[in-house]
Protein backbone atom coordinates (compact mmCIF):
# COMPACT_ATOMS: atom_id res chain seq x y z
CA UNK A 1 0.00 0.00 0.00
CA UNK A 2 1.43 3.37 -1.01
CA UNK A 3 1.48 6.44 1.22
CA UNK A 4 -1.25 8.02 -0.88
CA UNK A 5 -3.51 5.08 -0.13
CA UNK A 6 -3.18 5.75 3.59
CA UNK A 7 -4.28 9.39 3.52
CA UNK A 8 -7.52 9.55 5.52
CA UNK A 9 -10.32 10.72 3.26
CA UNK A 10 -13.28 12.83 4.23
CA UNK A 11 -16.48 11.84 2.46
CA UNK A 12 -19.74 13.49 3.44
CA UNK A 13 -22.71 11.16 3.03
CA UNK A 14 -26.03 13.01 2.91
CA UNK A 15 -28.52 10.27 3.79
CA UNK A 16 -32.31 10.36 3.70
CA UNK A 17 -33.95 9.56 7.04
CA UNK A 18 -36.40 7.15 5.40
CA UNK A 19 -33.98 4.97 3.45
CA UNK A 20 -30.20 5.34 3.35
CA UNK A 21 -29.88 6.42 6.97
CA UNK A 22 -31.90 3.37 8.06
CA UNK A 23 -29.95 1.21 5.60
CA UNK A 24 -26.70 2.38 7.19
CA UNK A 25 -28.16 1.54 10.59
CA UNK A 26 -29.14 -1.92 9.36
CA UNK A 27 -25.67 -2.41 7.90
CA UNK A 28 -24.32 -1.85 11.40
CA UNK A 29 -26.81 -4.25 12.95
CA UNK A 30 -25.85 -6.86 10.36
CA UNK A 31 -22.16 -6.26 11.11
CA UNK A 32 -21.45 -5.51 7.45
CA UNK A 33 -17.97 -4.15 6.87
CA UNK A 34 -17.53 -1.01 4.80
CA UNK A 35 -14.99 1.84 4.76
CA UNK A 36 -15.22 4.36 7.55
CA UNK A 37 -14.55 7.42 5.39
CA UNK A 38 -18.18 8.39 4.71
CA UNK A 39 -19.45 10.58 7.53
CA UNK A 40 -23.23 10.51 7.58
CA UNK A 41 -25.36 13.66 7.66
CA UNK A 42 -29.00 12.76 8.16
CA UNK A 43 -31.50 14.64 6.02
CA UNK A 44 -35.28 14.44 6.40
CA UNK A 45 -35.32 13.77 2.64
CA UNK A 46 -32.67 14.18 -0.05
CA UNK A 47 -34.98 16.87 -1.41
CA UNK A 48 -33.49 18.97 1.41
CA UNK A 49 -30.06 18.77 -0.25
CA UNK A 50 -28.70 22.27 -0.64
CA UNK A 51 -26.27 23.10 -3.46
CA UNK A 52 -24.55 25.81 -1.42
CA UNK A 53 -24.09 23.46 1.55
CA UNK A 54 -22.50 20.85 -0.70
CA UNK A 55 -20.17 23.46 -2.20
CA UNK A 56 -19.19 24.54 1.31
CA UNK A 57 -18.33 20.90 2.12
CA UNK A 58 -15.94 20.84 -0.83
CA UNK A 59 -14.62 24.31 -0.05
CA UNK A 60 -13.74 23.20 3.47
CA UNK A 61 -11.90 20.13 2.31
CA UNK A 62 -14.34 17.27 1.76
CA UNK A 63 -12.78 14.84 -0.69
CA UNK A 64 -16.10 13.47 -1.83
CA UNK A 65 -19.83 13.74 -1.30
CA UNK A 66 -22.32 10.92 -1.63
CA UNK A 67 -26.03 11.58 -1.63
CA UNK A 68 -28.20 8.59 -0.81
CA UNK A 69 -31.95 8.76 -1.24
CA UNK A 70 -34.91 6.47 -1.71
CA UNK A 71 -35.43 4.35 -4.78
CA UNK A 72 -36.89 6.44 -7.57
CA UNK A 73 -40.65 6.34 -7.29
CA UNK A 74 -40.51 5.54 -3.57
CA UNK A 75 -39.73 8.96 -2.09
CA UNK A 76 -41.61 9.55 1.17
CA UNK A 77 -42.26 13.08 -0.10
CA UNK A 78 -43.05 12.03 -3.67
CA UNK A 79 -40.18 13.57 -5.64
CA UNK A 80 -37.52 14.75 -3.18
CA UNK A 81 -35.01 12.20 -4.47
CA UNK A 82 -35.63 13.29 -8.08
CA UNK A 83 -34.99 16.90 -7.09
CA UNK A 84 -31.79 15.76 -5.37
CA UNK A 85 -30.68 13.95 -8.51
CA UNK A 86 -31.01 17.17 -10.51
CA UNK A 87 -29.14 19.12 -7.85
CA UNK A 88 -26.32 16.58 -7.87
CA UNK A 89 -26.13 17.04 -11.65
CA UNK A 90 -25.98 20.80 -11.10
CA UNK A 91 -23.16 20.45 -8.56
CA UNK A 92 -21.24 18.22 -10.99
CA UNK A 93 -21.49 20.97 -13.58
CA UNK A 94 -20.39 23.60 -11.05
CA UNK A 95 -17.43 21.49 -9.90
CA UNK A 96 -16.38 21.12 -13.51
CA UNK A 97 -16.43 24.90 -13.99
CA UNK A 98 -14.60 25.42 -10.70
CA UNK A 99 -11.87 22.95 -11.61
CA UNK A 100 -12.68 19.99 -9.36
CA UNK A 101 -13.52 16.54 -10.67
CA UNK A 102 -17.32 16.12 -11.00
CA UNK A 103 -16.88 12.46 -10.01
CA UNK A 104 -16.32 13.64 -6.45
CA UNK A 105 -20.08 13.74 -5.95
CA UNK A 106 -22.55 10.96 -6.73
CA UNK A 107 -26.18 10.11 -6.13
CA UNK A 108 -27.23 6.66 -4.90
CA UNK A 109 -30.69 5.20 -4.44
CA UNK A 110 -31.69 2.47 -2.01
CA UNK A 111 -34.44 1.38 0.35
CA UNK A 112 -34.13 1.11 4.12
CA UNK A 113 -33.76 -2.68 3.77
CA UNK A 114 -30.80 -2.45 1.36
CA UNK A 115 -27.97 -2.50 3.89
CA UNK A 116 -25.56 -4.28 1.58
CA UNK A 117 -26.25 -1.68 -1.13
CA UNK A 118 -25.36 1.07 1.33
CA UNK A 119 -22.13 -0.73 2.16
CA UNK A 120 -21.43 -1.18 -1.57
CA UNK A 121 -22.09 2.53 -2.21
CA UNK A 122 -19.70 3.48 0.59
CA UNK A 123 -17.09 1.09 -0.88
CA UNK A 124 -17.57 2.47 -4.39
CA UNK A 125 -17.39 6.12 -3.34
CA UNK A 126 -14.34 5.57 -1.14
CA UNK A 127 -12.51 3.71 -3.91
CA UNK A 128 -13.41 6.39 -6.44
CA UNK A 129 -12.26 9.26 -4.23
CA UNK A 130 -9.09 7.41 -3.32
CA UNK A 131 -8.32 7.12 -7.04
CA UNK A 132 -8.96 10.85 -7.48
CA UNK A 133 -6.83 11.71 -4.46
CA UNK A 134 -7.40 14.28 -1.71
CA UNK A 135 -9.32 17.46 -2.42
CA UNK A 136 -6.69 20.05 -3.44
CA UNK A 137 -8.69 22.68 -1.53
CA UNK A 138 -7.81 21.13 1.82
CA UNK A 139 -6.13 23.60 4.11
CA UNK A 140 -3.37 21.12 4.82
CA UNK A 141 -2.53 17.84 3.23
CA UNK A 142 -2.79 15.01 5.74
CA UNK A 143 0.21 12.74 5.53
Amino acid at each position, binding site marked *: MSAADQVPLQIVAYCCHYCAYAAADLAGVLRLRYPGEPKIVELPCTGRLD*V*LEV*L*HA*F*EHGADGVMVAGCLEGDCHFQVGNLNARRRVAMVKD*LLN*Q*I*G*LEPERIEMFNMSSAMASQFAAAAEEMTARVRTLGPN*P*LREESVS
Partner: protein
Amino acid sequence: MIVAEQKPLDEIRDLIADAGKVLVVGCGTCVTVCFAGGEKEAGILATSLRMASKLNGNAQDVTHLTVQRQCEWEYLDPIEEQIRQAEVVVSLGCGVGVQALAEHFPQAWVVPGLNTSFMGLPTEQGVWEERCAACGSCILGLTGGICPIARCAKQLLNGPCGGSQDGVCEVNAETPCAWQLIYDRLKAHDRLDLLMEIQPPKDWSTSRDGGPRRITREDLRLVAEQVE
Protein backbone atom coordinates in the same frame (compact mmCIF):
# COMPACT_ATOMS: atom_id res chain seq x y z
CA MET B 1 -40.38 40.36 -14.17
CA ILE B 2 -36.93 40.85 -15.59
CA VAL B 3 -35.45 37.46 -16.44
CA ALA B 4 -31.72 36.83 -16.47
CA GLU B 5 -29.23 34.00 -16.34
CA GLN B 6 -25.78 33.76 -14.88
CA LYS B 7 -22.75 34.24 -17.08
CA PRO B 8 -20.36 31.28 -17.40
CA LEU B 9 -18.01 31.13 -14.41
CA ASP B 10 -14.95 31.54 -16.65
CA GLU B 11 -16.29 34.82 -18.03
CA ILE B 12 -16.89 36.18 -14.53
CA ARG B 13 -13.43 35.02 -13.45
CA ASP B 14 -11.90 36.94 -16.35
CA LEU B 15 -13.79 40.07 -15.27
CA ILE B 16 -12.37 39.89 -11.73
CA ALA B 17 -8.98 38.41 -12.60
CA ASP B 18 -6.89 41.29 -11.24
CA ALA B 19 -8.77 41.78 -7.98
CA GLY B 20 -7.76 40.45 -4.59
CA LYS B 21 -10.95 41.43 -2.81
CA VAL B 22 -14.26 40.85 -4.57
CA LEU B 23 -17.82 41.57 -3.45
CA VAL B 24 -20.74 39.72 -5.06
CA VAL B 25 -23.96 41.70 -4.70
CA GLY B 26 -27.22 39.84 -5.20
CA CYS B 27 -30.60 41.44 -5.78
CA GLY B 28 -33.74 40.42 -3.90
CA THR B 29 -36.28 41.27 -6.56
CA CYS B 30 -36.70 40.01 -10.16
CA VAL B 31 -33.50 37.97 -10.38
CA THR B 32 -34.30 36.25 -7.09
CA VAL B 33 -37.56 34.85 -8.38
CA CYS B 34 -35.94 33.73 -11.63
CA PHE B 35 -33.19 32.04 -9.58
CA ALA B 36 -30.36 33.94 -11.27
CA GLY B 37 -29.08 36.48 -8.75
CA GLY B 38 -30.71 36.16 -5.34
CA GLU B 39 -29.18 35.39 -1.95
CA LYS B 40 -28.67 31.71 -2.74
CA GLU B 41 -27.15 32.35 -6.16
CA ALA B 42 -24.86 35.06 -4.76
CA GLY B 43 -23.63 32.56 -2.16
CA ILE B 44 -23.04 29.87 -4.75
CA LEU B 45 -21.17 32.25 -7.04
CA ALA B 46 -19.01 33.64 -4.23
CA THR B 47 -18.16 30.11 -3.06
CA SER B 48 -17.42 28.97 -6.60
CA LEU B 49 -15.14 31.95 -7.22
CA ARG B 50 -13.27 31.36 -3.96
CA MET B 51 -12.76 27.70 -4.78
CA ALA B 52 -11.75 28.32 -8.39
CA SER B 53 -9.26 31.05 -7.48
CA LYS B 54 -7.73 28.92 -4.75
CA LEU B 55 -7.36 25.99 -7.13
CA ASN B 56 -5.72 28.37 -9.56
CA GLY B 57 -3.12 29.30 -6.96
CA ASN B 58 -4.32 32.88 -6.66
CA ALA B 59 -6.84 32.82 -3.83
CA GLN B 60 -9.24 35.74 -3.96
CA ASP B 61 -11.20 37.08 -0.99
CA VAL B 62 -14.75 36.82 -2.29
CA THR B 63 -17.67 37.77 -0.07
CA HIS B 64 -21.32 38.29 -0.88
CA LEU B 65 -24.40 40.15 0.26
CA THR B 66 -27.84 40.77 -1.14
CA VAL B 67 -29.87 43.96 -1.21
CA GLN B 68 -33.62 44.02 -1.56
CA ARG B 69 -33.48 45.99 -4.80
CA GLN B 70 -30.35 47.12 -6.64
CA CYS B 71 -32.23 49.55 -8.86
CA GLU B 72 -33.13 52.08 -6.17
CA TRP B 73 -30.62 54.32 -4.43
CA GLU B 74 -32.03 53.94 -0.92
CA TYR B 75 -31.39 50.21 -0.91
CA LEU B 76 -27.75 50.78 -1.88
CA ASP B 77 -26.78 53.29 0.81
CA PRO B 78 -26.45 50.65 3.59
CA ILE B 79 -23.78 48.69 1.67
CA GLU B 80 -21.51 51.67 0.97
CA GLU B 81 -18.80 50.45 3.35
CA GLN B 82 -18.64 46.94 1.85
CA ILE B 83 -18.55 48.44 -1.65
CA ARG B 84 -15.72 50.74 -0.63
CA GLN B 85 -13.63 47.84 0.65
CA ALA B 86 -13.99 45.78 -2.54
CA GLU B 87 -11.61 46.11 -5.47
CA VAL B 88 -14.25 44.72 -7.82
CA VAL B 89 -18.00 44.42 -7.34
CA VAL B 90 -19.82 41.64 -9.21
CA SER B 91 -23.46 42.62 -9.56
CA LEU B 92 -25.97 39.80 -9.77
CA GLY B 93 -28.68 42.30 -10.57
CA CYS B 94 -30.07 42.89 -14.04
CA GLY B 95 -28.41 45.47 -16.27
CA VAL B 96 -30.26 48.17 -14.35
CA GLY B 97 -28.78 46.94 -11.07
CA VAL B 98 -25.24 46.92 -12.45
CA GLN B 99 -25.62 50.49 -13.67
CA ALA B 100 -27.31 51.63 -10.47
CA LEU B 101 -24.33 50.38 -8.45
CA ALA B 102 -21.84 51.99 -10.82
CA GLU B 103 -23.76 55.26 -10.82
CA HIS B 104 -24.31 55.37 -7.06
CA PHE B 105 -20.74 54.40 -6.21
CA PRO B 106 -18.57 56.17 -8.84
CA GLN B 107 -15.36 54.99 -7.15
CA ALA B 108 -16.33 51.30 -7.44
CA TRP B 109 -15.49 49.06 -10.39
CA VAL B 110 -18.69 47.13 -11.08
CA VAL B 111 -18.96 44.17 -13.46
CA PRO B 112 -22.01 42.10 -14.42
CA GLY B 113 -22.45 38.50 -13.28
CA LEU B 114 -25.65 37.99 -15.25
CA ASN B 115 -26.84 38.29 -18.80
CA THR B 116 -30.17 40.12 -18.63
CA SER B 117 -32.40 38.27 -21.04
CA PHE B 118 -35.94 39.63 -21.27
CA MET B 119 -39.14 40.66 -19.54
CA GLY B 120 -41.28 37.62 -19.09
CA LEU B 121 -42.90 35.11 -16.80
CA PRO B 122 -42.44 31.53 -15.67
CA THR B 123 -44.75 29.35 -17.79
CA GLU B 124 -43.87 26.35 -15.66
CA GLN B 125 -41.36 25.77 -12.88
CA GLY B 126 -37.92 26.24 -14.41
CA VAL B 127 -39.15 27.72 -17.72
CA TRP B 128 -39.38 31.45 -18.46
CA GLU B 129 -40.78 33.03 -21.62
CA GLU B 130 -40.67 36.55 -23.01
CA ARG B 131 -43.91 38.49 -22.88
CA CYS B 132 -43.11 42.20 -23.18
CA ALA B 133 -40.64 44.15 -25.33
CA ALA B 134 -41.24 47.51 -23.62
CA CYS B 135 -42.05 49.15 -26.96
CA GLY B 136 -43.63 52.10 -25.18
CA SER B 137 -46.93 51.93 -27.06
CA CYS B 138 -49.03 49.01 -25.93
CA ILE B 139 -51.41 47.40 -28.44
CA LEU B 140 -52.53 44.48 -26.30
CA GLY B 141 -56.05 45.92 -26.33
CA LEU B 142 -56.25 45.13 -30.06
CA THR B 143 -54.69 41.70 -29.90
CA GLY B 144 -56.58 39.98 -27.12
CA GLY B 145 -53.83 40.40 -24.56
CA ILE B 146 -51.21 38.60 -26.64
CA CYS B 147 -48.27 40.72 -27.76
CA PRO B 148 -47.12 40.36 -31.37
CA ILE B 149 -44.18 42.66 -30.68
CA ALA B 150 -42.66 40.42 -28.01
CA ARG B 151 -43.91 37.07 -29.25
CA CYS B 152 -43.80 37.31 -33.07
CA ALA B 153 -40.29 36.92 -34.50
CA LYS B 154 -41.12 39.54 -37.16
CA GLN B 155 -43.12 41.80 -34.84
CA LEU B 156 -45.95 41.86 -37.37
CA LEU B 157 -49.03 43.96 -36.71
CA ASN B 158 -51.54 42.62 -39.25
CA GLY B 159 -51.63 38.87 -39.05
CA PRO B 160 -49.16 36.02 -39.46
CA CYS B 161 -46.47 35.62 -42.09
CA GLY B 162 -46.12 32.62 -44.39
CA GLY B 163 -43.83 30.95 -41.91
CA SER B 164 -46.68 30.18 -39.53
CA GLN B 165 -47.36 26.48 -39.92
CA ASP B 166 -49.67 24.38 -37.78
CA GLY B 167 -49.70 27.15 -35.23
CA VAL B 168 -45.93 27.15 -34.84
CA CYS B 169 -43.35 29.77 -35.79
CA GLU B 170 -40.86 28.81 -38.49
CA VAL B 171 -38.05 30.34 -36.46
CA ASN B 172 -38.39 27.85 -33.62
CA ALA B 173 -40.58 24.78 -33.43
CA GLU B 174 -41.08 25.40 -29.71
CA THR B 175 -42.45 28.90 -30.27
CA PRO B 176 -46.16 29.15 -30.96
CA CYS B 177 -47.14 31.60 -33.70
CA ALA B 178 -48.24 34.73 -31.84
CA TRP B 179 -50.78 35.55 -34.52
CA GLN B 180 -52.28 32.07 -34.34
CA LEU B 181 -52.66 32.60 -30.60
CA ILE B 182 -54.21 36.03 -31.21
CA TYR B 183 -56.64 34.64 -33.80
CA ASP B 184 -57.68 31.77 -31.54
CA ARG B 185 -58.24 34.08 -28.60
CA LEU B 186 -60.17 36.72 -30.55
CA LYS B 187 -62.31 33.98 -32.07
CA ALA B 188 -63.02 32.52 -28.61
CA HIS B 189 -64.14 35.99 -27.46
CA ASP B 190 -66.08 36.64 -30.68
CA ARG B 191 -63.90 39.68 -31.37
CA LEU B 192 -62.49 38.77 -34.78
CA ASP B 193 -63.75 42.16 -35.96
CA LEU B 194 -60.68 43.67 -34.34
CA LEU B 195 -58.59 42.06 -37.07
CA MET B 196 -60.43 44.01 -39.77
CA GLU B 197 -58.81 47.21 -38.65
CA ILE B 198 -55.53 47.55 -40.50
CA GLN B 199 -52.73 48.72 -38.28
CA PRO B 200 -50.43 51.37 -39.74
CA PRO B 201 -46.66 50.97 -39.49
CA LYS B 202 -45.71 51.13 -35.84
CA ASP B 203 -44.18 54.29 -34.46
CA TRP B 204 -40.96 52.94 -33.03
CA SER B 205 -39.89 56.28 -31.62
CA THR B 206 -41.43 55.26 -28.30
CA SER B 207 -39.23 52.17 -28.32
CA ARG B 208 -35.45 51.92 -28.61
CA ASP B 209 -35.47 53.84 -31.90
CA GLY B 210 -36.20 57.01 -29.97
CA GLY B 211 -33.06 56.63 -27.88
CA PRO B 212 -32.90 56.19 -24.11
CA ARG B 213 -36.31 56.79 -22.60
CA ARG B 214 -37.30 58.88 -19.61
CA ILE B 215 -40.55 59.39 -17.80
CA THR B 216 -41.09 62.50 -15.69
CA ARG B 217 -44.04 62.79 -13.31
CA GLU B 218 -44.25 66.34 -12.04
CA ASP B 219 -46.90 65.31 -9.52
CA LEU B 220 -44.39 63.01 -7.85
CA ARG B 221 -41.20 65.03 -7.99
CA LEU B 222 -39.73 66.34 -4.77
CA VAL B 223 -38.91 69.81 -5.99
CA ALA B 224 -39.31 73.00 -4.02
CA GLU B 225 -42.55 74.72 -4.80
CA GLN B 226 -41.94 77.90 -6.73
CA VAL B 227 -43.75 80.85 -5.24
CA GLU B 228 -44.83 83.40 -7.75
